[in-house]
């Protein structure tokens, strides 16, 4: 160890302040795998000795790395209020995710994080009515917020969840939606799918159009006290923002996340910057008016 700056218990005093570097991952064990949809699986991860790998806030992400393949940033879909484990919903769409989808329960997995800021649950959102708008795998980042809100139900007002996907069997977390979310008072869930499918009784249509119908029919009021959280494929976000604008919702009342664009996660590797903002440090959660200030390079 460092010769000069030694103190009694052999700790080098000149860099005692640093915990283990944020780029070094921790080894976790996969304790459960749920097949959500044909191409989305939810992995439950625990520390080898049990419990969570690290604490996190809703909307934060973590970097899952597979030695020899590569590493990717995924949002932590379980809520911080859940003490035993953390969960990641991963869609199969590339070399790394292909590999992750072949892992079994009990296999080790290396995770580092948490990275990025979080949805402002304890500040701006406290006491507000919330409207969650999600598309496909976009539900994953919002799920941690929803479950957090449900666990501290009293701190928040009315909750509306508008969630849609390509088809019925592409709806993620369907079991939890039906058994938990729909049963919590003050939370109503509006599900939709893009195209007609036999055996599906719910709404049919794209999320933005469905949101507009709900808004205009008064099922969801966008009062001054309502904050909307939007996440999903870029084109869906574009049309949802347009729909919300038509209904008079101002940009500073809408939050979204620009996930999927990170490498180091600590705002240093210079990849994820849009204008002077670093998505992995200043985001991934942004207020939509902040997003508009950014140069359109995303």
């Amino acid at each position, binding site marked *: 160890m460092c010769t000069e700056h030694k103190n009694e218990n052999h700790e080098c005093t000149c860099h005692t302040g640093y915990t283990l*570097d944020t780029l070094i*991952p921790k*080894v976790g064990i996969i304790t459960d795998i749920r097949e959500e949809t044909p191409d989305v699986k939810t992995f439950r991860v625990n520390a080898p000795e049990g419990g969570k790998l690290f604490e996190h806030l809703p909307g934060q992400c973590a970097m899952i790395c597979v030695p020899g393949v590569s590493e990717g940033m995924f949002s932590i879909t379980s809520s911080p209020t859940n003490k035993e484990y953390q969960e990641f919903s991963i869609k199969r769409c590339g070399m790394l995710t292909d590999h992750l989808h072949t892992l079994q329960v009990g296999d*080790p997995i290396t995770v580092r994080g948490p990275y990025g800021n979080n949805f402002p649950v304890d500040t701006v959102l406290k006491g507000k009515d919330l409207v969650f708008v999600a598309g496909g795998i976009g539900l994953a980042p919002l799920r941690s917020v929803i479950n957090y809100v449900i666990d501290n139900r009293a701190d928040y007002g009315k909750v509306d969840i508008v969630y849609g996907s390509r088809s019925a069997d592409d709806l993620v977390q369907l079991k939890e939606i039906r058994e938990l979310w729909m049963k919590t008072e003050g939370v109503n869930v509006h599900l939709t799918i893009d195209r007609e499918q036999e055996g599906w009784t719910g709404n049919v249509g794209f999320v933005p159009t469905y949101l507009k119908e709900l808004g205009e029919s008064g099922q969801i009021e966008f009062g001054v006290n309502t904050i909307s959280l939007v996440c999903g494929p870029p084109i869906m976000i574009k049309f949802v923002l347009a729909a919300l604008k038509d209904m008079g919702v101002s940009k500073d009342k809408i939050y979204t996340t620009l996930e*999927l664009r990170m*490498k180091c996660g*600590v705002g240093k590797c210079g990849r994820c910057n849009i204008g002077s903002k670093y998505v992995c440090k200043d985001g991934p959660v942004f207020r939509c008016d902040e997003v508009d200030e950014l140069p359109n*390079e995303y």
Partner: protein
Amino acid sequence: MLKIAKKDLASLFALIKESGELYLPVKVAEQTNFAAYEDGAEFDLDTLKSVKSPKDVFFPQSETLYTCKNEGKTIKITPEELVDQPFVVFGMKACDVGGIEVLDRVFLSDPVDSFYAARRAHGTIVALACHEPEESCFCKVFGIDAAEPVADVATWMIGDELYWKALTEKGEALTEKVSSLLTDADEQVVENEKTAIRAIIEKLPYSDLSLEGWNGDAVAEKFDSKLWNELYKPCLACGTCTFVCPTCQCYDIKDYNTGSSVQRYRCWDSCMYSDFTMMAHGNNRTSQMQRFRQRFMHKLVYFPANNDGTYSCVGCGRCVDKCPASLNIVKVIKAFGEKGE
């Protein structure tokens, strides 16, 4: 102010080397680069600028972060040992010292990069004033005084004597160690040298370059300018300008499979490379114009916006010397200056 004769430098270096590694400009295959000093290595203090900036000492071009080994059913991760032995970097010019300060703002800001922090903590920088600045230098434009480098120790090569002045307690500690070789020296000789250097700097072709219009809040105005479309065309998208630059901070994290284990290492990456921003969502900078714009907007607009006005360029002029297509930051600043935008 102390001094030592030029001919005794070899013994000075040997003495420094006893208490830890010493990095200084060494000539290898007719090129001067910073390298670890071995006795008898041909050090070269005359060449003004090393090809690769000394940032390599604190932020190496590639360094292993950690090694993973599959052990039965679990993965064993062994982080790389942080640097814990003191070392000395000798012969750094004022612009490079400025470069290190720029990197400090990046790597020492929260969350601290402990690899870099460990090296900074254990490194003592001995700066050397520029004797004969060259035409591609423009450190004055960024407020760096080449005649008076600000590091742990400042030295001046005047005639055949090296003048030595410690500025920080790290510098004092080092001076203490080598005091046996140093003798007292006259301040005035150094003052005359400083004025001489500053006089030459005034006459440098780039010294009157104005950064007017380049600051943190020029994002929208500079971003949408049509000038970028003309300026970027000759750019070859190679990484020369970023890899010789003392202030470029971008890195990539990659794996190397050694057969028995997997080494995850960090290596410099260049924003000019075509797939630098290729990530899960695709690539948001597909054209070379966007990448070219990003490089100079980051140095002259985005970095100042995040670091209360400090530019991410120190005017060392290495990109001016080394760009294969003769493009550089000065031509960009001048182009926007003429167009009056």
